[in-house]
């Protein structure tokens, strides 16, 4: 317990002695991690958006006009026995025409000129969650397309594919930027710890001579690195939260993405905790780098 107190006191003393360096390290770490955080936030929100779209996906199974009512009934039976199908309903030719007229009243005269109803009957199918991935939707659609009586299977795959491509690109960019900026954060903290080690080199030499183990000497500096990384990460989250609120406010005021602003989410609490944890780990890594170099030179 006393040893633990000693370690915390020493870590605190280091930070107090090098107040300016400590503040600069926390701020630069915060800005660095905030840059990573922006991409992470974008990624999280686009992933969520892709999830909503995927969950909301409705597959239109258009039927051949020449299909008999028996063939339609067979298709319905097939869907009811299919475990991939969560829900479905039938839209007859007449219902389709009625919906078209209701949705596009000014265009309804176009169909009247044709004499007969050109809109096909269809089933609107919602797939169960395990079958909602882009690949599963594609496989299911291709299978159904082969069914006798089915004219066409359609869903908003283009949209989902485009979003998936954007998400993949952001994933790669965020990962690349994350790695580079995390390395920068580690370097910043490593330099701060190096300064602390240099300032206390005589003290460290004395500790070695009186029988202190390497871990006893290192722990206060690891704690210092952890605090710098953790505080830097927490500050970056505060900065991001501020930017996030500002963005939402702008959206509300300008009326852009009206009604969607509440969907632009911030990191959930467990993720915030995890991100502070990542900051702590980066801080410890920075300390470790400096301690290893210092240890090799002075041991």
């Amino acid at each position: 317990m006393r040893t633990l107190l000693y370690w915390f006191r020493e870590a605190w003393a280091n930070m107090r002695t090098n107040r300016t360096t400590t503040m600069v390290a926390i701020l630069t770490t915060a800005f660095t991690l905030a840059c990573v955080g922006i991409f992470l936030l974008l990624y999280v929100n686009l992933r969520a958006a892709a999830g909503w779209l995927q969950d909301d996906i409705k597959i239109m199974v258009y039927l051949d006009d020449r299909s008999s009512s028996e063939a339609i009934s067979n298709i319905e039976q097939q869907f009811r026995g299919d475990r991939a199908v969560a829900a479905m309903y039938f839209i007859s030719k007449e219902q389709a025409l009625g919906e078209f007229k209701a949705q596009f009243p000014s265009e309804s005269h176009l169909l009247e000129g044709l004499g007969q109803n050109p809109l096909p009957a269809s089933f609107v199918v919602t797939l169960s969650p395990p079958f909602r991935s882009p690949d599963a939707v594609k496989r299911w659609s291709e299978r159904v397309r082969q069914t006798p009586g089915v004219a066409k299977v359609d869903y908003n795959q283009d949209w989902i594919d485009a979003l998936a491509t954007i998400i993949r690109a952001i994933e790669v960019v965020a990962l690349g930027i994350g790695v580079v900026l995390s390395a920068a954060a580690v370097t910043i903290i490593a330099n701060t710890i190096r300064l602390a080690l240099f300032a206390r080199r005589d003290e460290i030499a004395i500790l070695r001579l009186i029988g202190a183990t390497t871990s006893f000497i290192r722990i206060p500096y690891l704690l210092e690195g952890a605090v710098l990384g953790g505080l830097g990460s927490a500050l970056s989250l505060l900065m991001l939260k501020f930017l996030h609120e500002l963005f939402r406010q702008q959206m509300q005021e300008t009326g852009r993405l009206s009604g969607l602003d509440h969907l632009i989410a911030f990191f959930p609490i467990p993720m915030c905790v995890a991100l502070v944890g990542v900051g702590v780990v980066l801080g410890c890594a920075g300390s470790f780098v400096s301690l290893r170099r210092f240890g090799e030179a002075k041991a």
Partner: protein
Amino acid sequence: MIQLIRISKHYDRRPALSNVSLEIEKGEFVLLMGASGAGKSTLLRMLIGAERPDEGQVFVQGKNVTTLRRSEIPYLRRKVGTVFQDFRLLPKKSVFENVALPLLVQGVSPSDIRRKVTEALRAVGVEHKRDQLPVGLSTGEQQRVCIARAIVNGPVVLLADEPTGNLDPALTGEIIELFKLINARGTTVVVATHDPLVMAQVNRRVITLSDGALVPEQKVFA
């Protein structure tokens, strides 16, 4: 207690110690004499594993220091107290905290730390300065605190490297008396010095080094 077998050490091809062999028995008080650069400090540093010889072997209390792993060296140093010419006290810690440090690194309980530090400070005569910072002490008092730190965990060996180098003759006498007292309690004491005054005051076994080589022992007192 201490055994050096054919020790040699070179720094940039310059010999610091050449083929040195010696033995120091348990409870002995030994003076290690020699001019500056004779190899006294190198020899003492080898006894605490701070230097490794190029050749030969060093034994302290039966342990071969030359083959100790780096992780084992702190445990050797806990049995060997060290006193320095420049005291090496932590300037921002009180006298009590400085002396408590060797116990703290060993995880000794707070009540034992209080008791042992008080005993050590009393033994060297600076108990009344326990709450002061080293900067407020005289050089003699700083050296006493350094000695208290070296003996606080009851080491089997006390090594002192030019402990009177910064002290006037009167203070030198006081510090030597302190070493004699510590030795009288059973601790093996090795004092490295170039000061003939110390030799005159100690009147014990003298080991002399010259240019890294052992000079045959000239005199042995009781």
